């Protein structure tokens, strides 16, 4: 999806302003938003690709005007309502109730083992790498990213589309976000680290030096390029 979330190379946002001794969270509600995401993930209510897709579907002006955990909240509400776990009406009603009686105590019900599962998940080996087809490219191959503009969720940023790169590493097959974000299955297939020279991405707008950007890109994003690379053929 060509959305405003795809920020690589954009101008106009100003200098990076690191915050000195920044707290873990900036408000109580942020902690709850974080906890909800972890709970939803560990109970498989929706997956990480769906959570990103839902953030990207925020109205563009809202996305840019929202803080980080505000965007998580928008994604949680969209996914939880899409999955029928909560309804918009239920949420509106509960908000009215809490607004009228702000001192309603927080509910004290524990789900046995849920917190343990969340903490365990933080330490457990992730499960995105899965068996898939053999890799078509190998290290050193020259490839060109496809000039694709899908409306669906994708992990090929616009700044790197239709660009020449070189395979830096072959990661093996990983769950594919473009389908997994839309209930279209995991479709694990080969993922590569692809190196792009800065000049290829930005030409004369590149800073002086020999810099590069590395992106992890699925094989479906890539086309072989004729030339010396072994895997390259067209």
């Amino acid at each position, binding site marked *: 999806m060509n959305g405003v979330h795809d920020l690589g190379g954009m101008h106009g946002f100003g200098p990076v302003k690191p915050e000195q001794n920044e707290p873990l969270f900036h408000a109580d509600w942020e902690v709850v938003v974080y906890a909800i995401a972890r709970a939803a993930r560990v109970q498989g209510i929706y997956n990480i690709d769906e959570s990103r897709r839902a953030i990207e579907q925020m109205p563009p002006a809202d996305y840019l005007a929202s803080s980080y955990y505000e965007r998580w909240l928008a994604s949680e509400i969209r996914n939880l309502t899409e999955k029928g776990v909560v309804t918009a009406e239920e949420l509106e009603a509960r*908000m009215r109730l809490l607004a009228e009686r702000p001192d309603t105590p927080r509910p004290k019900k524990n789900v046995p083992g849920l917190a343990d599962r969340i903490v365990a998940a933080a330490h457990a080996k992730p499960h995105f790498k899965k068996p898939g087809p053999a890799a078509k490219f190998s290290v050193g191959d020259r490839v060109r990213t496809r000039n694709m503009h899908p409306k669906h969720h994708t992990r090929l940023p616009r700044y790197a589309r239709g660009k020449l790169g070189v395979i830096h590493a072959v990661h093996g097959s990983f769950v594919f976000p473009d389908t997994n974000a839309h209930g279209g299955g995991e479709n694990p297939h080969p993922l590569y680290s692809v190196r792009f020279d800065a000049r290829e991405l930005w030409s004369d707008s590149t800073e002086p030096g020999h810099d590069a950007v590395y992106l992890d890109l699925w094989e479906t994003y890539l086309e072989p390029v004729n030339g010396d690379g072994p895997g390259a053929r067209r």
Partner: protein
Amino acid sequence: MSGHHDDDHHHHAEPEHPLSVRVRALESLLVEKGLLSSDVVDRVVSLYEKDIGPHNGARVVARAWVDPAYKQRLLADGSEAIEELGFGGVDLKVVENTPTVHNLVACTLCSCYPHALIGLPPTWYKSFEYRSRVVIEPRAVLRDFGLSLPESVDVRVWDSSAELRYMVLPLRPPGTEGMSEAELAKLVTRDAMIGVAVVQPPATPASVR
């Protein structure tokens, strides 16, 4: 609202932030439906305030500095190597800074970050400013952090677009030959493992004066 605040915290004068009302509403619905439990918030906070944080990554860096064989295993397979120190939960790729290559980790599309190892990302890492500029003018971004690299050093930006998480193995600072692994670990900062800083040599008495 977070567990470790007592409940009268709610009786403050100004009206509650609408976002906070929306979150409390969602929270209470999920707890009622048995999909969220009130102890999760506290456990998550303590997880990242105590167990998981930059200090874990710093231990891995220090081990790699003192143990060349470990460094090779770390660069070959980060996920495997950190398990030797009891860490896990991430498909980790460690990228090494050298005198001629400086690495920088980012996620232009969202906020991918090796949080299972070095804790939650700072706000600036998730900011539009960093995400927009880091891939097109990394050297200018480094100057925002007070770090000026000579043109002779190549900058590599790792834009995390999949589920692999990147971490920088910073250069070991000069004058630390006599230091223990534990002392070395204390020098390693979060920013150095993201790549927006280098590890400073220890404050020698001379420089402290």
